[in-house]
């Protein structure tokens, strides 16, 4: 794991001082709200439905037990005892006082954390594969490259007033566990025939009101030029992205309006120029970072077999535990989606337990997934039973990863001032009703957003739900056929929307069509792709 050196530490410390000063000037009246708002947003502080909300960055979703513990302590000390893990691999606190924000940032800085650029029109926290460093299918660990991006993008002076927010993701496997092509820039690390590492660039993806899958714009950028290429992509966007209409300001609109070919041409021209500007960090810097992402000291000769006599444990292992590159080890995904619970919420005590588990059994490492769960990336199979028991005892033992109960849900109208409808109660009703049928249904990714901004990734759900406001009443549209993986696709709206009760029934109906029509080995998504929308429509509205 990357550990801050004195330089990194000095930067976050300076940031804390700067933000304290900005808050002071706001409270003393030297800054108007119009002037202060972009400043607080650049530091992840929103004004939400009930209070200020603080979004803390978890760079590429990786953190150690001390950092996780601090997240729990902040929930207990400054919030109302819980936090919410987001689809951007971050954590949000819902009940923050402006007066406390400086102290919270100071506490975070004490464990090498911050809220820098977690909002605002700048380059946001870079996301990555939550199995990085543990997955057997990666060509390289993507995190050193994500860390290079973190450093390059942090306080980037040219890109601090972009037309709109900017999100990047880096992966290094063919399987896409980070929704890479639904980002402003998606980077996939690949190896060529000579075994050299390069970066594939996809630019102009995103969800929101105009969902788009990022087109590839370059197959191969030599790895020792990829930061320069990022800079070129951003400069073209900063100069030419639309600023006349907030809803057309994302880079996906620029790429779409120019066409991928013309956008690429402009980027290539800028790239050729920037190559002479000394922007690229040297290989020594990459080596310094990569040295901090080496494998933990795995034991050898560990057994791969486990005692699966306890059926509940066996089920959890089958659903939540995945293969690891090291024999005798496994990747555990801890579900923050109890049936009937609030997706992604964790209490201070749960967060601290996760920290304990990482310390006791997981080489001190944790990951946050874009599906709002938490991963222990390196655990001995021999420890799984003990881990599971501790999770069970604290309400985190659900065996439902990638099942219908593992719902992504944005905060929706219960917390979010932009929302049109509540997301969480719908997720709770669906997970409660469908829990007993999860095994029968198998993999089914359900994603709910409370408005068109799509923080709940509804476009990319096998089943997606979008909350809308119909004359002051909450209404829910149903989408089918989305996927955020390597087979990326956008869902299609089934037809007229449903009320809160109706949408739960509609989801059940859609799963019944699938169960009746599926062929051997088909997931919900496969069946939908084979039989199309018509049978679902017929069952829903016919």
């Amino acid at each position, binding site marked *: 794991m990357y550990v801050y*050196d004195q*330089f*990194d530490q*000095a*930067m976050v410390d*300076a940031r804390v*001082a*700067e933000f304290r*000063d*900005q808050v002071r*000037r706001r409270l003393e009246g*030297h800054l108007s709200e119009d*002037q202060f708002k*972009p*400043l607080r947003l650049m530091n992840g502080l929103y004004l939400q439905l009930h209070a200020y909300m603080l979004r803390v960055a978890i760079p590429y979703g990786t953190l150690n037990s001390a950092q996780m513990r601090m997240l729990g302590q902040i929930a207990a000390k400054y919030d109302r005892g819980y936090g919410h893990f987001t689809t951007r691999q971050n954590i949000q606190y819902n009940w923050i006082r402006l007066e406390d924000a400086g102290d919270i940032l100071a506490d975070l800085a004490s464990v090498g954390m911050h809220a820098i650029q977690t909002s605002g*029109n700048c380059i946001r926290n870079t996301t990555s594969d939550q199995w990085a460093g543990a997955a057997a299918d990666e060509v390289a660990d993507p995190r050193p490259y994500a860390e290079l991006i973190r*450093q*390059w993008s*942090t*306080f*980037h*002076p*040219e*890109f*601090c*007033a*972009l037309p709109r927010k900017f999100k990047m993701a880096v992966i290094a496997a063919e399987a896409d566990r980070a929704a890479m092509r639904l980002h402003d820039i998606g980077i996939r690390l690949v190896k060529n025939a000579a075994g050299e590492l390069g970066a594939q660039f996809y630019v102009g993806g995103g969800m929101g009101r105009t969902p788009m899958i990022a087109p590839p714009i370059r197959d191969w950028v030599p790895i020792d030029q990829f930061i320069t290429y990022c800079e070129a992509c951003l*400069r073209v966007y*900063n*100069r030419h992205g639309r*600023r006349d209409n907030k809803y057309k300001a994302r880079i996906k609109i620029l790429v779409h309006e120019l066409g991928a070919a013309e956008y690429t041409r402009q980027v290539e021209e800028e790239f050729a*120029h920037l190559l002479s*500007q*000394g*922007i690229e*960090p*040297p290989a*020594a*810097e990459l080596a*310094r970072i990569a040295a901090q992402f080496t494998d933990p000291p795995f034991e050898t000769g560990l057994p791969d077999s486990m005692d699966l006599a306890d059926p509940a444990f066996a089920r959890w292992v089958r659903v939540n535990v995945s293969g690891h590159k090291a024999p005798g080890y496994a990747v555990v995904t801890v579900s923050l989606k109890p049936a009937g619970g609030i997706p992604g919420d964790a209490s201070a005590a749960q967060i601290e337990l996760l920290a304990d588990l990482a310390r006791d059994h997981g080489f001190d490492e944790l990951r946050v997934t874009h599906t709002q769960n938490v991963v222990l990336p390196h655990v001995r199979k021999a420890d799984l039973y003990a881990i599971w028991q501790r999770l069970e005892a604290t309400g985190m033992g659900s065996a439902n990863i990638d099942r219908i109960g593992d719902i992504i849900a944005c905060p929706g109208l219960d917390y979010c001032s932009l929302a049109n409808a509540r997301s969480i109660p719908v997720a709770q009703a669906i997970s409660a009703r469908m829990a007993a049928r999860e095994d029968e249904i198998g993999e089914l990714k359900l994603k709910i957003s409370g408005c068109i901004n799509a923080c709940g990734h509804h476009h990319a759900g096998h089943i997606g739900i979008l909350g809308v406001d119909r004359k002051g009443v909450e209404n829910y549209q149903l989408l089918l056929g989305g996927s955020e993986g390597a087979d990326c696709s956008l869902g299609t709206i089934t037809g007229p929307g449903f009320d809160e009760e109706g949408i739960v029934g509609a989801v059940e109906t859609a799963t019944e069509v699938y169960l009746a029509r599926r062929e051997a080995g088909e997931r919900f998504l496969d069946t939908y792709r084979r039989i199309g929308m018509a049978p679902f429509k017929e069952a829903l509205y016919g």
Partner: protein
Amino acid sequence: MAEVQFRFRNDELVEDAMVTVDAFGQQANASAVRIEPGDEPRDLLPHLERLRLVEVNFPAFTDGRGLSAARILREAGYAGELRAVGDVLVDQLAALRRCGFDAFAPEVPLNEDDARAALARWPAAYQPAADGRAPLWALRHGQGA
């Protein structure tokens, strides 16, 4: 016309008549130009040797196009005065400076103490820009001081 409140140059203040980017190419004796957000800064590159002052207007501090314009000029070797005007606020000073601005004429004068604190805030920079500051990776690997 706002006053220059901060200037980080030793040469004399340039008071030459300001023309638009469009007009600059035609006016062979013009030496000062004003860049608006949508202008193409590279149109000025053939004329760098007669340029003494570039004023970049920020009608709203949230429009960062002027930041790219400044860096592009510095990258091309422009060494004259680069002045930020318009909605220039305390909390943008450090970024403006890094992008190559060396003079500031904010529409509303800034609190001097706040501005000085903002300019002195950062112990280092993560990435190279147009201010000649060595990025952190250079400090880490013993290049530059």
